């Protein structure tokens, strides 16, 4: 599988006044392969949304590098980025906020086509119709306004807009977290159907661990602006190597439906996530980590390959590897 | 909190300095115009012009001119109005200040009491007939222009009914506090009411909106779930939070009014305040007076803003950190 997007040591800081900085993303390196879904999971404030915006250059990087289809897009101007925009699209959590309330759903989907000069009015109309079919809306929906749609339908409009120009990459930022469970399942299925039909590549950002497991081929777990573990979805959930991943998974309340799915032993973390302004020295997880040792307080662990995955921990929990190797 | 106050007033001083520089540049450094001629007034004789040039240092660099200007204004207090044949400007302003302050402070008390009272009543009684009635009263106050209302009030109290109902109303003008609080208040009573009516309407409307928003807030629901009385919820929770934006608006309005925006009221009721002074100076193109009143106005607006920000921080703990 070829690499579609490659991020190297991406850093994004925001100014927080008095010369301090919010270190939203702090040295993230990852690869997105063509045709896969890379899940990015973490709790609020872990920098996953900011990372998503960095990956498609919706925001400028503080430092680091992003390559898309082999081309360095880190420092491209808005103008130079423009021809690349159709290939990288974003889907947001709240599609309602990104839709103009005075324009019909058909208009909203036609907009990117017009901006990027897809064709004449007839061609655009035809394409919008196709897109509505594709995302499971009917032609009758074309002339309705955003407030006439339910949350799930609005998200379908958002998705239709994103795929209108045949993108290679779609970055979806919490696209189902505002939806009811039954509707969430419909939208998740739509994502996988579209991937199959159109060969899309997804970066799927979410906080819901069940959702991320369902959609992702590989998953990156973030904590305080850093990626702490990257692994194949099945492997990550079967045996989390980073203590934070372990705690995160064990905290998910599971449905006991009597089918005997084994309950994880809960690791309850104490305290709150530290502020991204005052990061702890060493490993940023050490103040809450149940297995932290002296070394973790001083030395920041790098993301390194361990047993077929990548982990940023001095003492990863992987059977067969010596602790501290 | 102390640190915040110091920082806030430090910033106010900086703003005042910036305004003084700006005013100075507008009056003295506008290209193509001879400032001496403007200060000396229309048709000034050459001797006056030369005198002005020397005293303001127009042959010297701009920073020196600025310092000289500030010296005339604040140290020697000898800025002179040439239009009015040598009247000193600063004492004129100092005489006008108590009049304007008396007018605005009194009106402010009345409009805050009225505005907060009406707004709270309307907001709390939403859905009943009281709300639209009170708001109608507010609109009535807002839509009457001060100059018209003032003239009507004068017509009634000074002429039509002066012989009967309003025989106790003194003639137009100002009575300083030295003549007794009673006379002072009596002279200002109708100016106060006239000015306050307008602002009371605006404040009532604003507070009603804020209060209705606050009453829909989650914290009000929490307060209800706590078993508090409706009265306590309204006053201690909803009203307390709704007052925050009111206070900030009040600071702006108060500063602007003291700075001369009460002009119309002062003119209509013959009160020799700062607004009236500015008005006369503008009519005569009396530049030194205009300059003096502009800086005075700026001083009050900035000061009022600083006081309000400190009050704001007192009312809203969230801004203290910033």
């Amino acid at each position, binding site marked *: 599988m070829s690499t579609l997007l490659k991020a190297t040591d991406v850093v994004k800081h925001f100014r927080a006044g008095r010369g301090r900085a919010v270190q939203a993303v702090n040295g993230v390196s990852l690869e997105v392969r063509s045709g896969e879904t890379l899940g990015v999971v973490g709790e609020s404030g872990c920098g996953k949304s900011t990372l998503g915006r960095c990956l498609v250059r919706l925001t400028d990087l503080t430092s680091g590098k992003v390559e898309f289809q082999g081309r360095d897009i880190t420092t491209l101007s808005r103008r130079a980025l423009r021809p690349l925009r159709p290939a990288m699209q974003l889907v947001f959590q709240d599609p309602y906020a990104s839709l103009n309330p005075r324009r019909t759903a058909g208009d909203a989907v036609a907009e990117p086509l017009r901006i990027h000069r897809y064709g004449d009015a007839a061609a655009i109309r035809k394409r919008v119709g196709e897109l509505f079919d594709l995302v499971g809306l009917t032609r009758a929906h074309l002339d309705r306004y955003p407030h006439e749609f339910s949350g799930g339908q609005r998200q379908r409009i958002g998705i239709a807009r994103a795929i209108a120009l045949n993108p290679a990459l779609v970055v979806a930022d919490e696209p189902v977290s505002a939806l*009811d469970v039954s509707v969430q399942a419909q939208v998740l299925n739509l994502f996988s159907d579209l991937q199959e039909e159109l060969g899309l590549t997804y970066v799927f950002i979410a906080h819901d661990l069940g959702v991320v497991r369902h959609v992702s081929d590989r998953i990156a777990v973030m904590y305080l602006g850093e990626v702490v573990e990257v692994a194949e979805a099945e492997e990550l959930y079967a045996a989390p190597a980073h203590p934070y991943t372990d705690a995160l998974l064990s*905290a998910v309340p*599971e*449905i006991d439906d009597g089918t005997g799915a*084994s309950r994880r032993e809960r690791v309850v973390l104490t305290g709150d*996530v530290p502020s991204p302004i005052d990061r702890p020295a060493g490993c940023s997880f050490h103040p809450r980590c149940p297995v932290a040792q002296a070394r973790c307080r001083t030395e920041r662990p790098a993301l390194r390959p361990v047993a077929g995955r990548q982990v940023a921990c001095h003492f990863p929990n992987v059977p067969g590897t010596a602790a501290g190797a | 909190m102390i640190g915040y106050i110091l920082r806030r007033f430090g910033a106010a001083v900086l703003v005042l300095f910036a305004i003084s520089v700006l005013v100075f540049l507008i009056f003295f450094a506008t290209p193509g115009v001879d400032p001496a001629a403007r200060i000396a007034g229309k048709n000034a004789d050459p001797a006056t012009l030369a005198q002005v040039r020397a005293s303001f240092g127009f042959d010297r660099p701009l920073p020196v001119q600025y310092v000289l200007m500030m010296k005339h204004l604040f140290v020697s207090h000898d800025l002179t109005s040439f239009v009015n044949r040598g009247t000193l400007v600063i004492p004129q302003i100092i005489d006008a200040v108590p009049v304007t302050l008396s007018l605005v402070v009194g009106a402010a008390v009345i409009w805050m009491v009225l505005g907060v009272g009406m707004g709270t009543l309307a907001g709390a009684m939403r859905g009943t007939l009281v709300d639209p009635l009170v708001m109608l009263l507010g609109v009535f106050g807002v839509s009457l222009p001060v100059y018209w209302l003032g003239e009507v009030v004068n017509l009634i109290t000074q002429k039509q009914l002066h012989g009967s109902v309003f025989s106790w109303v003194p003639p137009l003008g100002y009575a300083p506090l030295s003549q007794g609080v009673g006379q002072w208040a009596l002279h200002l009573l109708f100016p106060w009411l006239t000015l306050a009516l307008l602002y009371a309407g605006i404040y009532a409307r604003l507070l009603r909106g804020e209060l209705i928003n606050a009453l829909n807030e989650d914290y009000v*629901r929490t307060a209800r*779930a706590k*078993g508090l009385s409706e009265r306590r919820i309204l006053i201690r929770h909803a009203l307390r939070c709704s007052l925050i934006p009111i206070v900030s608006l009040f600071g702006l309005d108060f500063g602007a009014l003291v700075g001369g925006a009460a002009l119309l009221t002062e003119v209509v009721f013959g009160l020799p305040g700062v607004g009236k002074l500015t008005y006369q100076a503008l009519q005569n193109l009396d530049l030194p007076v205009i300059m003096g009143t502009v800086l005075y106005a700026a001083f009050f607006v900035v000061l009022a803003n600083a006081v309000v920000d400190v009050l704001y921080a007192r009312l809203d703990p969230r801004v203290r950190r910033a």
Partner: protein
Amino acid sequence: MPEPLLEVSDLRIRFGGFTAVDGLSFSVRPGEVLGVVGESGSGKSVSMLGVLGLIRTPGAKISGKVVFRGRDLLALKNAEMRAIRGREIAMIFQDPMTALTPVYTIGWQIAEQVRAHEKVSKRAARDRAIKLLDEVGIPAPEQRVDAYPHEFSGGMRQRAVIAMALSCNPALLIADEPTTALDVTTQAQILDLLRRLRADHGSAVVMITHDMGVVSEIADEVLVMYGGRAVERGSRTEVFHSPRHPYTWGLLDSVPRVSGPRVRRLPTIPGTPGAAGQGCPFADRCTHRLAACAEAPPLSGTAGHLDACWLPEEEKTR
């Protein structure tokens, strides 16, 4: 079986022409945790606001019976209801970020509730606040009692809100999505806290949530709501191990799990959650729809496991 603490029968709440709660009946026994689960529009939150008399919308019509410790709450005067709210029944809400008045300290707000119901000095109320903050796991409570809400993180604020709710030792705590706005690790802490507090204080809890996982972790009894009606009710084991209503099946199936086999496509419920109509509220979305569904099925069943569905008994298994 002990007397129910709260017994709601045939609760109806209407806003104009819209029926939000349509004949809801349930009961809560002392010390029990009832999980009320459903999607948006199911009426789960509105019904609990109705129980506490917290619906303020003009024109809202509430009928039925809400008997708490032998008294019908719907028939009480405002002042009598106020004495129950916050003292005997406490309620906490979803968003801890907005649930506290921003201009007062945490301690002040807890003390306010204590002093609304008990004749104690300011000093004593403050000491109680410190003790409560300590109990819900807020570090350095002597200092934090004087902190303002914005100085707390989301998890800490929810702890503070819980501390406030428990300040008068209520017999019943109604928690409306108390962990929905929180991160999973924080949610786990809050659920642990609620479990511990129930053990210590013996309060019964009504836990309103859309998260089947949360219900499965904390509830003794489960009430599944759809379109303003109860569609299934029973013990946790009954409802989760052998659900009987097609909506419950759909809800359980459509949640992506963190363990067990991974499916390529999630089973879904077609359509979107809608309002109650004449017949079974779920009929429009139900794949097992029968002719009888034009009429609303009653909540019925045996030995405490009830469902509202016209399917023949033998077909009520997944």
